[in-house]
């Protein structure tokens, strides 16, 4: 009896091995399950989008709700700002001032006629997207704009952020 014990694997050790192997197997499968929840391919709208010819945009701003962006046109300069609040992703809205207000952007004082306001948690942004009050941690992003070579439409690349002073020059 004693000889048998020393030769073979004890029951306790066998259970430890089987238990350990089971834990590894369960852990591995849990990892597989969690990893499978993160998609490898996204069937979502393109981030690079054509928004129309430059001349369809009025002077001032236009909200393109389908793309969640504001497009601005000042004479022949165009730029675009995201409407997605950097706090938790709600859509900010434009709040027009009854009187123009003078605000400081760094050392420069400019006159603004509106600001962005987030309805969810009250973040407020200057007209250039800079956050100045509320819980938003960063400014609203500006996206890269260019003119499509094939049909002359304005292209916005929501995957590429640019400096807030970047402008696209258009003919009209």
């Amino acid at each position, binding site marked *: 009896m004693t000889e048998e014990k020393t030769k073979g694997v004890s029951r306790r050790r066998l259970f430890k091995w089987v238990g350990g192997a089971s834990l590894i197997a369960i852990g591995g499968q849990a990892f597989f399950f*969690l990893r499978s*929840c*993160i*998609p490898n391919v*996204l*069937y*979502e*709208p393109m981030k690079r989008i054509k928004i129309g010819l430059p001349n369809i945009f009025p002077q001032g701003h236009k909200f393109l*709700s*389908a793309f*969640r962006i504001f497009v601005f046109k000042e004479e022949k300069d165009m730029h675009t700002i995201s409407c997605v609040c950097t*706090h*938790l*992703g*709600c*859509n900010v*809205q434009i*709040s027009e001032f009854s009187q123009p207000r003078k605000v400081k952007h760094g050392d420069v004082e400019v006159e603004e006629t509106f600001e962005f*306001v*987030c*309805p*969810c*948690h*009250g973040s*407020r942004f200057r007209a250039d997207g800079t956050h100045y009050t*509320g*819980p*938003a*941690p*960063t400014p609203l992003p500006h996206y890269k704009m260019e003119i499509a070579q094939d049909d002359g439409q304005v292209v916005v690349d929501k995957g590429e952020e640019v400096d807030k002073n970047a402008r696209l020059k258009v003919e009209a």
Partner: protein
Amino acid sequence: MKSGIANRLLWSWRPESPREANDAIVKNMWLHWFPSKVAKRSISFSYSFWLGTISAVLFVILSITGLILMFHYTPSMERAYTSMKDIDFVTSYGWFLRGVHRVAAQLMVVSVFLHMMRVFYTGAYKKSPGCMGNRPSNWIVGILLLMLTLALSYTGYLLPMDQLAYWAMIIGANVAASVPFVGEQIKMALIGGTIIDQNALLRFYVLHCFLLPIFMFLLMAYHMWRIRKDGGLACVDQISLRHGNGVASPVSTKTYSLLGITSGMDIRAQTLSQIEEKDLIPSSPNLVRRIWLVSLGTMVITILLAIYIQFPLEAPADPTMAPNPAKAPWYFLWLQELIADTTFTILGMTVNGAFLGGIVVPSILLALLIVVPYLDRTPTSNCGVWFPRERLTQNIIFTVMVLLVITLICVGAFCRGPSWVFYWPWEQWPVLPVNF
């Protein structure tokens, strides 16, 4: 044996003696969950308010109504909202089923929270000399059940795909994304992409209708089993201590255990707390009758509220325009307040309130609740007693925390207007331009 139609139809046999009453419990499939005898004090309304039982009954109501609603609801981005409208206005008694489901869900949040408060104020999470089991671990299970209740509520109100649902998904996903390093992966795993679409709805549907209820059921079963193994409610410990029998040799509590029925075996359920016969009463009919009463009362209140309170859906989900103000359901308003108020900048680095208020603060509160039984060094002799003087400090701290949460809920509910600006309840909100 009493005569009468009900007795003849429902009972083939009636116990004539306490011994037979015990047998009735042990041999019955449903009743064998209960001990054959219970302490008088543990079934009193003034001690527990039966909040645990009420929560369990509400969960049963939710399971049944939820199952029926699953026949009518379509988890698709295109049809979810219209199927909910059909439930409200087309399906026979659909409004009633949805109302009961909705009322029961909100009542369950209340009852589980009150249950936690009751356990805290009576120090029932402590391991007293009269308790033979491990009450602290059951307190932790209870906290997990509270979390599951909130998770079920959250995933539940996402399913109609109205404005409330859509923006709650956006905010929930972005709170998850605010976790440093792995936030984007968590968000992707949660909503199955970067935007709220079919993947997100399907995931929350599966969580709400299958995964979370299964966890809830298993944990509730464990929670109740642990109460039995811990010797019943904490107030029973006081009876043991009063008789000076705090720790005693194990004695049998049941004449028969399930295994003991097998011939030649005598495995008996045992307890360390010795309670005298005069403090005990048979579970049948005393405990059973009260459980029926509590269940019936819970159902009646739920049904009446479902009839009298309307729960209209908000407008269909509109990804282009969040409602203003966009408010979470009342039981999450304290979190919304925290999220809105906790962004700060230190040494040029901005910490997002989403992370601080949405993840860090709730996690700290959760951790505090979990370690409370191990931090509380007050005498264990007051376990199962309402507001004992020895636990005054603990009770004050806990009350302040609860009041803070309630205050934040009230601020969110009554003092937040458009763009989350603070207004006193009597102040007029500004009229906002409507975008068509």
